[in-house]
């Protein structure tokens, strides 16, 4: 039972990581690099959007991702009863 619980916890964690890493990839490698030229046709305040993602936006998103991951994991730790005392 304990082993099963640990396995389910790990699977949930990996799923969480993968979904956050998709966002991580899309904002930096997607919006900031691969799609940058296309996005540059869109004006975002005084920025071209692709340029903004490359030099500002991706960094903000990275920060949000880490904070969200840390919070989701705290919940997950409790749900599976593996949290630290």
């Amino acid at each position: 039972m304990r082993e099963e619980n640990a396995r389910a916890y790990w699977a949930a964690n990996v799923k969480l990581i993968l979904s956050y890493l998709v966002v991580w990839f899309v904002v930096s490698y997607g919006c900031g690099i691969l799609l940058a030229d296309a996005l540059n046709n869109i004006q975002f305040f005084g920025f071209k959007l692709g340029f903004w993602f490359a030099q500002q936006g991706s960094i903000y998103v990275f920060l949000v991702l880490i904070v969200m991951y840390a919070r989701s994991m705290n919940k997950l730790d409790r749900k599976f009863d593996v949290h630290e005392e």
Partner: protein
Amino acid sequence: MDVQFLTYLFVGGSFALYIGIAIWSRAGSTKEFYVAGGGVSPLANGAATAADWMSAASFISMAGIIAFAGYDASVYLMGWTGGYVLLAMLLAPYLRKFGKFTVPDFIGDRYYSNVARTVAVICVIFVSFTYVAGQMRGVGIVFARFLEVDVNTGVVIGMAIVFFYAVLGGMKGITYTQVAQYCVLIFAFLVPAVFLSIMMTGHVLPQTGFGATVLDAAGNDTGVYLLDRLDQIVQDLGFGAYTDGSKSTIDVFFITAALMCGTAGLPHVIVRFFTVPTVRDARISAGWALFFIALLYTTAPAVGAFARTNLIETVNNAEYQQLPDWFYNWENSGLIGWLDKNNDGRVQMAAGDPFKGAPTFAGSREEATGPVGQRVITNTPTDNGSEIYVDRDIMVLANPEIGNLPAWVIALVAAGGVAAALSTAAGLLLVISSAVSHDLLKKTLKPNISEKQELLAARLAAVVAIIIAGYFGINPPGFVAQVVAFAFGLAAASFFPVILMGIFYKRMNKEGAIAGMAVGLAFTFCYIVYFKFVAPEMNTAAHWLFGVSPEGIGTVGMILNFIVALVVSRVTAPPPEHIQHIVEDIRVPRGSGAAHAH
């Protein structure tokens, strides 16, 4: 009070603070020396990680690199921040749960092999030494520029300070001095940036001023966006648009990936997460670290754009004798050089270098003066219209003067530059000394030495490392500057995959890990050495593998590492039972305190 006096006061005051902290936080045990006793709060660890991470190059050079490279410099901005996402999700929490002292500790235990441990030790020492040599040089240069002492004297002073708190306090001393150093450096970076932003756009936040409209000299809104104006003026001079890149998309992609994975794999960054009390703290601490880093990393591109615009508008086509004072000051220190190719007494900017290399002056301003009072340059001119050489470091160093800021801001920038260089150097030296005393001596050569002896060995190793780093700072081998950027590629191709698979792939065994590390490292190393040293004339996109430059090749090395490791592990025996239990154990947070018992 004059700038010189204030600079001595600020730098001296910050040194007194660092030494005070060192005395207060002396390390009494190996655990305190290696991981600060494991009791650092996530917030403090975040600030210490940020200071550890941001070197003199981040503080002084990065905004200037962005100013001259525009969009192309985005690789550094994304690459050196995106790695923290990987660290927070893929590495830091599990390594914290593992609960040992060093990166080779994990690799040696997880792969039940002293060969793997020794390979890791060699990588740690190699990567850290190339990195630290640049830092010691940076300390010397900052001293030389602001305190008017010789670069070598500066290196020796820097060595003495680091010696004091790294040898005495170990990780504990380093952590708390790094927190103080972070405060000094971020304040020193933000103050001039905010003033510059207000001056150019009326916005207090550089991050929004970056995308705002420009004010004219009288402070009225011109209605033109800063970046549109900048694109326009650089294109008028014959450069590519600031917001467009000149590198190929594939190269930008691979360089960014190498920097991200390299960041996540750098031992001096990873080891910082061993110092927090719990797994939960390790996750959020990565968030704090990125928050503190992002303060500088989102400001730097704004500073780059402000400074480039300001520089061109102030200097281009201006009569030499009408230029502001800062121009002459930096010309005096050799960071600006003007060669009046068309003899019209005005400074013309254009795409291309005005002459080859850094300027060589015929003598001081008094000894060799040109027709309008400029310093005479003896370099052979190129045949383009560009007349001016501007060192990229000026973009940060001269900001306070360009913005007419009070003298104390200039002194503050000096203290900030020294703090940035010292904090990174100390973090690296600690990693080197623990690799020697803990991984090599205690875990491999002499397992039965007492804790007291190990602590003494750690201190001695730190002393030796400081002396070697100082030697390289005074006599920099020509390759250091070239190699520092590649430390990331090497870390990405060696540590990152091996640690990742050690956590996420239970079946990974020692044969796979060692083969993967060896192939990834050898491939990356050879590619870089070939294009940088053996055949530098071939270092163009046409000759690169898949069009990937040596800066980005670490990503290919990393992919090779993964492939080789997976294939080899499939055809060899699975790791023993107890190793699989270790992996299961590090995957769950509970019991993180207990893992410390050695």
